[in-house]
């Protein structure tokens, strides 16, 4: 790296850092395993340097230098990935893309906007909202992820049932290949394969995304919420399936399994925010110690706790329709009819509104749980309707040996939906906790895929699922390898990810 430093510095006009601070800050993402390491005082191997190119040409020059010197390059957005997708396992240079932060004007006729890869999601959505538009993309990481990260990992937002995943919003993408060539994919209509779809989801292993042209929609005139209590997970799933079969496209669909329902069911209505908050102070000072004891005694024995969760049966089901006011109301009525016919009890709009208000709060629980000596992680897969319940049961069965298992179903489609498992576990020592974490993942992902699910719906592959991903490809591995040879012949882009 030292030999390349001068050349790299020249092409990025001095925007290169080898400071430990910058290397450590980009050296880990939000993979929970790295949080376990943090608790143990360990850090993942940091990159050798960080560069901040600001133009496609600068990125291309960085790639060319890296090819000449056989340097690993890791494209970096805001480090919100949860699968170790940006860990510098082979050292190298982190290519921080946040200088690609332009948001172009909205084209109201074509209903699109040009956005740089480094734009933070929340910034983009607020800017669009101020102009009367929305991308419709609201991942729970929206405050901590970039457009480039979304493209690289095929991100999904909470309103995906209506607006689709990020790959459904892309009109074209631009960037630089591992060959150092710049590219911009064509917009429809075009002949031949849609190359953008081949590059999206490549997690920095084939190219560096620098920007995209994305579809936007007018801001919704109205949002209509409705929640139901359904007698069982199966009935809830069937209600969702019927809703989509009838051509309804709610923006939000969330079915919580009975155990998860006990948590969402506790949600209280909004109270005015007060500062100072004695509650927060208490949480910060007293709670960690108490939780730590509790965690080891309960979460450390999932085999005892999980069976108790099966005593509950009733599930919470939330819908939200948005768009033109009368149409959203009409869709809501049709959804209500479908759910009531499945034995659902109408809970009104309250729980849905409460979920909406707290839709990003799940992130806030992490610090206290980690401080309490637990591990917490989530696994999201999708499956056709025929397989969804089987995937649910199998994963719960095998993962229950290692952690407390909660699940909700969201991101619904006419042909299937996503299952979002949450795992919380603990152990007597950090070594035991890490060992359990690793075993849990092997067992849970194996159970999911053998029951008919894919390996990821929207978190991506990274390091965490690389082996399962390669296994899932079968002979398709050759096609992936061919793409790698074509677009990154020297293997410099994000080595080790996706099993490449």
């Amino acid at each position, binding site marked *: 790296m030292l030999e390349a430093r001068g050349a790299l510095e020249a092409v990025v006009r001095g925007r290169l850092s080898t400071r430990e601070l910058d290397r450590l800050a980009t050296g880990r993402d939000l993979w929970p395993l790295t949080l376990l390491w943090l608790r143990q005082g360990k850090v993942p191997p940091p990159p050798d340097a960080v560069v901040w190119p600001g133009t496609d040409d600068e990125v291309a020059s960085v790639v060319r230098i890296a090819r000449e010197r056989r340097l690993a390059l890791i494209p970096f957005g805001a480090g919100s990935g949860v699968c170790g997708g940006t860990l510098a396992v082979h050292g190298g240079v982190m290519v921080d893309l946040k200088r690609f932060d332009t948001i172009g004007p909205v084209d109201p*006729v*074509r*209903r699109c906007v040009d956005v740089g890869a480094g734009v933070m999601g929340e910034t983009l959505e607020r800017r669009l909202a101020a102009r009367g538009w929305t991308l419709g993309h609201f991942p729970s990481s929206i405050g901590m992820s970039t457009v480039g990260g979304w493209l690289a*990992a*095929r*991100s*999904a937002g909470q309103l995906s049932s*209506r*607006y*689709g*995943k990020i*790959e*459904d919003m892309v009109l074209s993408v631009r960037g630089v290949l591992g060959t150092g060539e710049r590219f911009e994919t*064509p917009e*429809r*209509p*075009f*002949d*031949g*394969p*849609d*190359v953008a779809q*081949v590059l*999206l*989801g*490549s997690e920095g292993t084939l190219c560096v995304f620098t920007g995209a042209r994305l*579809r936007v*929609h007018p801001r919704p005139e109205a949002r209509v919420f409705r929640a139901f209590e359904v007698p069982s997970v199966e009935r809830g799933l069937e209600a969702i399936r019927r809703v989509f*079969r*009838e*051509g309804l*496209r709610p923006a939000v669909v969330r079915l919580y399994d009975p155990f998860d329902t006990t948590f969402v069911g506790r949600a209280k209505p909004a109270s005015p925010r007060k500062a100072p908050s004695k509650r927060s102070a208490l949480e910060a000072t007293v709670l960690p110690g108490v939780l730590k004891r509790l965690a080891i005694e309960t979460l450390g024995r999932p085999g005892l706790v999980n069976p108790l969760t099966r005593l509950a049966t009733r599930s919470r089901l939330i819908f939200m329709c948005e*768009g*033109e006011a009368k*149409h959203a109301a*009409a*869709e809501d009525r049709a959804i209500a009819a479908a759910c009531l016919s499945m034995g659902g009890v109408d809970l009104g709009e309250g729980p849905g509104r409460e979920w909406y208000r707290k839709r990003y709060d799940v992130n806030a629980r992490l610090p206290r749980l980690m401080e309490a000596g637990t591990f917490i992680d989530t696994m999201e897969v*999708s499956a*056709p*309707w*025929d397989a969804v319940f089987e995937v649910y049961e199998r994963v719960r069965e095998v993962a229950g040996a290692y952690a407390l298992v909660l699940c909700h179903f969201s*991101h619904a489609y*006419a*042909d*299937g939906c996503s299952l979002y498992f949450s795992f919380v576990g603990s152990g007597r020592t950090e070594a035991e906790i890490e060992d359990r974490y690793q075993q849990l993942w092997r067992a849970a992902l194996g159970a999911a895929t053998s029951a008919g*699910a*894919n390996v*990821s719906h*929207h978190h991506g*592959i990274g390091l965490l*699922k690389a082996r399962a991903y390669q296994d*899932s*490809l*079968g*002979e*398709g591995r*050759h*096609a*992936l390898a*061919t793409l790698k040879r074509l677009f990154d012949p020297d293997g410099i882009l994000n080595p080790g990810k996706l099993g490449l």
Partner: protein
Amino acid sequence: MKTLLQALGPVAQAVGDGLVLRPASERELVAVLAVLRDRQASLGAEVMLDRSALARLGAVQDRAMTLEAGAGVPVRVVESKANHARLTLGPLSPMAWEASVGELVEHPALAFRAVVPGRLEPIAAGITGVLADGHLVRSAVGPRHAAGPDLASLLVGGGGALGLVTAAVLRLMPLHDAEQRRLFSFGTFAQALEATREALSAGVTFARAVLRGRAGRTVGEYTLRGAAAQVDRELELLARCAEHVGGRFEGLGREAEVDGPEREASWADLASALGHGGSVELFRPALTSVIARGVAAHEFIPPGPLFKGLRAAFDRSHVLGRGP
């Protein structure tokens, strides 16, 4: 040609001066492509590929609303089987109904259907295919994924340039009898197009639309098909969208079809056609693009470097002899 015929074995048949290759499985297709590569031969007018023997037609998966079909199965046959289960491939364009499953799924435009709100999704929920280099691709059957690059996209909509689909799991939708039409007129063609886009963005899924100039205004006839309740909901929405941009309700409508070939077109192409006094008929209206009659052919756009690279990587010897 004779030695090629011998090398290919029973899968090949001499017809006139050329050969017709009729593989009945992926394995046979892989073998065919290997022989052609060895002999530096290509598929084309002299060596024709006939996928009609890839004729497996699976059972309808009612819950997921999917049906697996071999590449050689005519789309109409798939539709017939789906209809028995009260399902349908949906409102396809006339050209799509004449295609085989392989042709449908490989076609750059027909391979996608329109879904709310005006976006596109592949008709195939999963595919099996053979790349030109002889390797298989089998995509997982599922609604969506974040599992690396979408390898199915090498074949889906790929025009058969990088590989050939051998089977596809096709997405279906409920078969409903309700169909209604509405006619609106607009002061300008730009307003008519804007109303159409607004309706798509708001959640209308029309099966067909005709836009044409008449007596100084532009009329738009929209056909909606689906469950009766859904059609009613969307008709009301359509009316509000049309009125929002100054449209006037003109009755239930029955506009004549537009002649000419079907093409995938952008909204600028539609504006250009209407601006020149033409009429357009839309079959797969989405915000991204439409399949239309009445639009001019595109100028030939040379394949971009990405595509050239892909073809060089997967079909170095041009065994498929196809491409944009």
